[in-house]
């Protein structure tokens, strides 16, 4: 595969890209120039301003098409690749049994004011998602799903009483970076409450996380859009059982 590519409109290498945004200025020639200036700063060259519409008194919405001059360097792309094998439920159970000789304990919750439980339920509950059963289905996993709007102290307490090997936290609301604040608060509390080697694995998930941010958020792993229970189970086994916690 080529290591350098560009966006594709209808011809290889044409760089064609669509952009839309609102500027807080009324619609006139200057505003259109301003939109083109922004497009140029974003690397669109030449840029075509194809739509401009004033919203209310002081805002204008723009649609711009154009060729973006940036190159995409595939060899420099940074992503979190799956660095563990995808296992079947049977394999997961076998490994837990062999290595851990007890059930692997998982505690899950939506923390903060977030009440979007569908995502964490999809991972934890029997029903699962996309045809895959959730972690409750795995015989060797012990799952406590605490539901919505759980406070960090409640979560820490439950992790302690359940002797959790892993804590799974879901965050869906991202406005004003709520998901990042809540995650940091959570990981700090766990660092405080548990001695270094004894802390459960901290896993967060939600559709708008950047999976590269584990370090910054102080967690062990981040799962994004479209995660399936099997991926999570496989990761748990990979980390908890294999590392022989």
């Amino acid at each position, binding site marked *: 595969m080529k290591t350098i590519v560009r966006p594709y409109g209808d011809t290889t290498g044409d760089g064609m890209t669509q952009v839309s*945004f*609102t500027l807080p200025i009324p619609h006139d020639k200057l505003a259109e120039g301003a939109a083109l200036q922004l497009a140029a700063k974003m690397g669109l060259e030449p840029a075509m301003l194809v739509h401009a519409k004033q*919203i209310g008194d002081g805002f204008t*919405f723009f649609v711009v098409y154009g060729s973006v001059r940036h190159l995409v360097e595939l060899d420099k792309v940074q992503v979190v690749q799956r660095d563990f094998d995808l296992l079947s439920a049977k394999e997961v159970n076998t490994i837990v049994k062999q290595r851990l000789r007890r059930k692997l304990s998982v505690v899950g919750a939506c923390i*903060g004011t977030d*009440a979007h439980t*569908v995502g964490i339920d999809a991972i934890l509950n029997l029903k699962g998602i996309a045809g895959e059963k959730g972690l409750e289905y795995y015989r060797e996993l012990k799952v406590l799903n605490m539901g919505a709007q759980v406070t960090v102290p409640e979560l820490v307490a439950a992790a302690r009483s359940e002797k959790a090997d892993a804590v799974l936290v879901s965050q869906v609301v991202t*406005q004003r970076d709520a998901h990042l604040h809540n995650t940091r608060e959570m990981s700090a509390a766990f660092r405080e409450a548990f001695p270094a080697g004894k802390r459960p694995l901290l896993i967060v998930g939600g559709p708008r996380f950047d999976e590269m941010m584990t370090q910054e958020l102080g967690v062990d792993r981040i799962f994004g859009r479209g995660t399936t229970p099997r991926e999570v189970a496989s990761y748990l086994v990979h980390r908890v059982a294999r590392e022989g916690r």
Partner: protein
Amino acid sequence: MKLNLDPLAVSRARELARRAGQPVVDMARSHTTVSVERAVLRLAGITGADTDGIPWVNRLVDQVRDDVGLGHGVALPVFHALAEFGDLTLLAQKAAAGSVRFELPQGKDATAARKLAKRAVGQGIKTIDRNRAQRDRLVKRHGDPKQRPWIYLIVATGDIHEDIPQAQAAARAGADVIAVIRSTGQSLLDYVPEGATREGFAGTYATQENFRLMRAALDESSRELGRYVRLTNYASGLCMPEIATLAGLQRLDMMLNDSMYGILFRDINPIRTFVDQRFSRQIHARAGIIINTGEDNYLTTADAVEAAHTVTVSQLLNEFFAHEAGLQDWQLGIGHAFEINPDLPESFRLELAHALLARELFPDAPLKWMPPTKHMTGDVFRGNLLDGFFNLVGTLTGQGILLVGMMTEAVVTPWLSDRDIALQNVRYVLNACGGLHEDFVPAPGGFIQQRAHTVLNEAIDLLAEIVDDTLLNAIADGTFGIMKRPANRGKGLDGVAKHEPGYYNPATEILEAR
């Protein structure tokens, strides 16, 4: 009538809903909650909060409860104590400082306190009545929206001072109803924050001052636009009765107010919710506020085809509870939603069937039609298309209130431009297809009619089960939205008290007087 529903089946469904709901009403009539009591004090004119932001009404109610319990209501102890302190707020401050001990007046004292309380609360109700009259005048002056459905838009910046210009822009762009959604945390707070607020998460705190600011801004817009722009907020969560009261006091026009939403989606205790519900609905009835119920939410956790009949059941229950609380049909913005998986064959016809069923079951209610959310993805082009077909169902089936869908539903709380694109979508559909309902005639005995009949029958069967098993048990079993909520669990149960003999609530007395 396009569905050819069996009138006997319809009246049987209503009768079953009455029988399922009545025990809950009986329970609500014999209990009170901290928030109901605080609402009474708010009606009596107490405002403000202490330096920690805890409202004086909370301070008072907490103190009364500590001293004499909640079961008699706070009106008598408070107004008895007032005889001594003269001023309610002063009383609250003193109470907070621990320098008042409340007691339950007896005999003549009780009569005097009752009279005082009723007069004070009567003032609050009078304000509500004046606001209602004022709304009527303004509607007459500026006019109602020219079209049905009314166009309902959400603002949600978290900052009332960003919300206001956005709401005004939305009104200018065609919104008939503005809803300011609430910060994610608020529904679980057992107090109503005070003052203008600027830091909600994914929504703005509901406060009396925010209500006032926004209503004033929309009065300005109404004048500018020659069309009365309505304001909505959420009477739900642990403070539902108080929020309803503040809405009445600040002339809000609609309130989200569902009999089960808090139970199912905020894990609030069922008994707490039903008690708070009844009081808040009585206020809404008096204030001429249109309520919006929340059946749409069930379809975000349950499947919109499989669970269609649970929506119908809930609508019938909401109707019963609403009527019982004194609401008129024109005040029932009964909810339902376009949430069927769009990849399902004939999904659009199924949507039409469900929407028409609601329309024909509740012919005089301004149904509230909610847009796709669950099956929206980051593909905003597809999203805007789905919203167009949602709008089409809205006009084809004569919905009363149309919550405008956003192409960025799966991405962010709406941007200014999302709202503009969404309104343009609505305008196109209503303008281009406004009369198309004349040509939409479900084939007799065909797909749409059959589907509607099936859903109605399933609803009747489920209602019959609920009558046998009780509504509280049905809720505990996960009947609605697959959420299991036992009656002895959930938040806020400790704020509930059974009426003691002699319980007195001047607000209820006035509200139930007619």
